[in-house]
């Protein structure tokens, strides 16, 4: 992806699989960037943050070769 993209859809999780319980709550989103879509995790989520379809995100590193994002 380029450095920026938009949220195509998202969900705030309160339950996770074994390896991710410690990260709760976190956001899973599909990002649309340069006409392509990919799934990512948004780790800088907090309850005061407004997230909606269309919100802008930017690249915040990667994990296992998959890009992680943060809300701008």
């Amino acid at each position: 992806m380029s450095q920026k993209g938009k949220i195509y859809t998202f969900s705030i999780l309160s339950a996770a699989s074994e390896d991710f319980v410690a990260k709760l709550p976190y956001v899973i989103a599909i990002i649309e960037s340069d006409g392509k879509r990919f799934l990512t995790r948004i780790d800088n989520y907090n309850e005061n943050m407004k997230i909606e379809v269309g919100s802008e995100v930017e690249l915040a590193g990667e994990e296992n070769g998959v890009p992680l994002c943060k809300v701008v």
Partner: protein
Amino acid sequence: MRSVSVIGIGETKMGRLSGRFLKDLITEAGNKAIEDANIQKEMIQALYMGNFNASYWSTQSHMGPLAAETLGLGTIPTIRTEGACASGSLAFREGLIAVGAGVYDIVLVGGVEKMTHRATETITTGLASAADCELEANMGATFPSLFALIANRYFHEYSNIRKEMAMAAVQNHENALLNPNAQMQKKITVEDVYKGFPVASPLTVFDCSLITDGAAFVVLAATDVAQKLGLTRSVKVIGSAQASSALTLAGKKTITSFESTLRAADAAYKQAGIKPKDVDLAEVHDCFTITQIINTEDLGFFPKGQGGKALAEGKTARDGEIPINTSGGLKAKGHPIGATGLSQIYEVVTQIRGEAGDRQIKKADIGLTQNLGGTAATCVINIFSGR
């Protein structure tokens, strides 16, 4: 392909079956189906077993011979099918194809899953393996969260159907109250759904199907063989189709309609020579409430974007124009993954036979089952007729 009929059905009660494990569930449901068919075990020529993840949850693979030995079926060929939540329907379809092709005259098809002996996080991890491990599960996506992504996108593209989704859960719980095999025997309200634990927004725990132990079996026979045996309660399979779509959610063209369902439905309706309006009842894959609504649109029962409204108007109730999930569905009857597709068939055959007791619908000549695996990466649709 020659005509094939369901000649016997059997299932366990669904639920948290403490102290009962795979072989016990297989024994009960398998023998019930064989007795229901009124045939001798020696007449069964092959066994097809649907199971999703006993390898992980019970460290038990090689499900085919396990079930064949448990049921005393001798040395017949057997195989396990795995297609996530559609594993049972895949077993059914493979058995159907083999009988239809004339390879066998009579086969047994089963599905089983044992889940409740594991912690919820372990169940969640096992279920997540039905998604793309690298691109989804290892990023922290769970199955509820993947369908939550679908729900939020649906709200954006069509309308916010949060209330209608809650009503789907309420309706399925009401139906389950009349099904003695259902896991949930509890009436719930729309408010209960809203107040449930927020598993993955906008879904609460009441939007999610259940963690269930259970097994379901059916006996399939060539229709002419069933007639020669004088079996009068058999139900014909008049259409069966399967299709796939991308395993990843981000790799699908659209996520508010499932391409696998659209393709399988089109093929199954053509085979059966019917239109969606000819279907009297359907068991559809309500792994989550949003999925039930999308499925009723994809199957052609309602226009795109109108499934929620139709449900709210009572069109999918037991006395509605197309009763959906009279069994209680995955939401309230239960979702024993590998057995689910066969349990759907159990309900449709029971309704067509007119043996559904208090939940019997008035006209049940043609019934349909739709079973999804993953985020609809696999879809199997079967159409049944009592005529």
